[in-house]
C-alpha cells in the first residue's frame, strides 16, 4: 500500500510541470568531495563540496557530471551526487545557497549522530575510537596515482 502511495505521489509530481524535478540540479550525498578541473580522478581540485551542497548540472559525460557551484564550474563523479532536488518556489534552498534547517534536519533523519550517540551510551564496550582512527587514515590522491602507475595499473 505504501509503495503504491509513493508511486502515485511521485507520478503526480512528475506530471505536474510546476513541480517537476529540477533535472539541472543535484545534491551532494557524500560527506566531502571535490569539483575537479577535468572529468577524471586525480584531476586538480577546483573547489571542495560537502554533504547537502546543491550543484547546478551543466552536462553529463559518462560517469561524470559537469557542474557549477558558487560560480565555479568543473566535474564531479556521479556517485558523489544525487539528482533528487525539486523546484518548489522558495521552499527549498536554491543553487549555491546553504540548505535550510529543515532540509538538513530531513537529510539526517533515521540513523544519525543522535541515534549513534544513544547507542554508544548504552554500549561503552564498543570501540568507536578505533573506528575514528580508521576513518581518519587517508590515502592521498598523489600517493594513489603513483601506486597505480608504479604497479602498471590503470587510472579510471
Amino acid at each position, binding site marked *: 500500500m505504501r509503495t503504491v502511495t509513493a508511486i502515485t505521489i511521485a507520478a503526480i509530481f512528475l506530471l505536474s510541470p510546476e513541480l517537476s524535478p529540477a533535472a539541472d540540479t543535484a545534491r551532494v*550525498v557524500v560527506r566531502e568531495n571535490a569539483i575537479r578541473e577535468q572529468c577524471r580522478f586525480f584531476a586538480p581540485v577546483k573547489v571542495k563540496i560537502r554533504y547537502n551542497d546543491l550543484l547546478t548540472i551543466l552536462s553529463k559525460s559518462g560517469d561524470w557530471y559537469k557542474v557549477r557551484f558558487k560560480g565555479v564550474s568543473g566535474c564531479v563523479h556521479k556517485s558523489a551526487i544525487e539528482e533528487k532536488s*525539486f523546484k518548489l518556489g522558495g521552499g527549498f534552498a536554491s543553487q549555491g545557497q546553504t540548505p535550510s534547517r529543515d532540509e538538513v534536519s530531513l537529510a539526517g533523519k533515521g540513523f544519525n549522530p543522535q541515534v549513534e550517540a544513544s547507542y554508544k551510551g548504552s554500549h561503552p564496550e564498543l570501540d568507536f575510537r578505533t573506528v575514528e582512527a580508521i576513518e581518519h587514515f587517508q590515502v592521498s590522491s598523489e600517493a594513489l596515482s603513483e601506486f597505480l602507475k608504479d604497479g602498471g595499473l590503470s587510472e579510471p
Partner: protein
Amino acid sequence: MTRNLLCACLAALLFLPGCKIQDLTPEQIGMISRSLTTTIKTARPISDEEEYYVGRAVAARILSTNHLVNNKKLTDYVNLVGQSVAIHSEKPFTYGGYHFAVLDDSQINAFACPGGIIFITRGMVNAVKDEDELAAVLAHEVGHINHRDGINAISQSRWTEALTVIGADAAKTYGSQDAAKLAGLFEGSIDDVFKTLVVNGYGRSQEYDADRASLAYLAATGYEPRALKDFLERIVKQSKGSEGGIMKTHPATSDRIENVIANMPEQKADPALVQMRSRRFAAAVGR
C-alpha cells in the same frame, strides 16, 4: 495511515481544476515538499549517510573483540590496494569513503561493513600469495558494499518500523520516545548486520555477485582476474574439513569457483607486471 491520508489530500489538491502552485501559501508548499521528501525517503530504504552510521557501529562492534595490527607500512599498502580497486567500482565514493584495516586475527577472513570500512585479517594477508590475490579479496568486499549486502541483512520488519517513526513527521526533531524507538531499531539493525557478517555469512547469490564484481574491478584496474580463482582453489584445498573463518562466512566451494570461471573476463594481466607487484607485496607484508 496518516501519510496515506496526507498523500490522498495532496493528490486531490493537485487535481483540483484551477489549482496552481502559485496559489499555494509558503506553508502549503513546505508541507508538500516535506511530505514528498519523506515519501521519497520511504521508497528508498536507507540513505548513504544512514548506511554510514550503521557501518560505523558494526565496525565498532567487530573492534570490541578484535585489535588492529599495528603496522603502518602494511596498513598503508592494504589501503592503496583497496582504494585502487574501489575507484574502479560502480561506486567509487561512499558517504564516508572506503577505509581498509588489518585485524590481528590468525583466521582467514574479511568483512565489509556497510558504508565502506573493510576489515581483512592477518590470517588473510598471510594466505594470499601476491598483490593481485590481495586485490581480488578486497575487490570482493568492495562488491558487497556496492551491492549494499550488509544493509540488506537488516530484517524487513525493522525497516517497516523505522520508517513509521521517521515518516511520522519528518520536519520535527525527534521526541524522546521516537529517539528511543529509533535507538532500539538501530541496535537491532546492528545485530542483524553483525550476525550476517561475522556469524552466518551472506547467501550464495550474494557471494556469486560479489565474485563477479571482483572480477570486473580487477580487470578494470589492470590486475589479473584469475587471481580470484587461484586464491579460491587454494583455500578450498587448504580448508578441507575446516569450518571456521572464511569457510563459515564466505564458503569457498567448488560451485563458487565454477561461477568465477564462467564469468572470467578475457583480459589477462602482463605476467611481468604481476611479478613486479608481487615484489612490492612481499616488501610490504614482510615476506
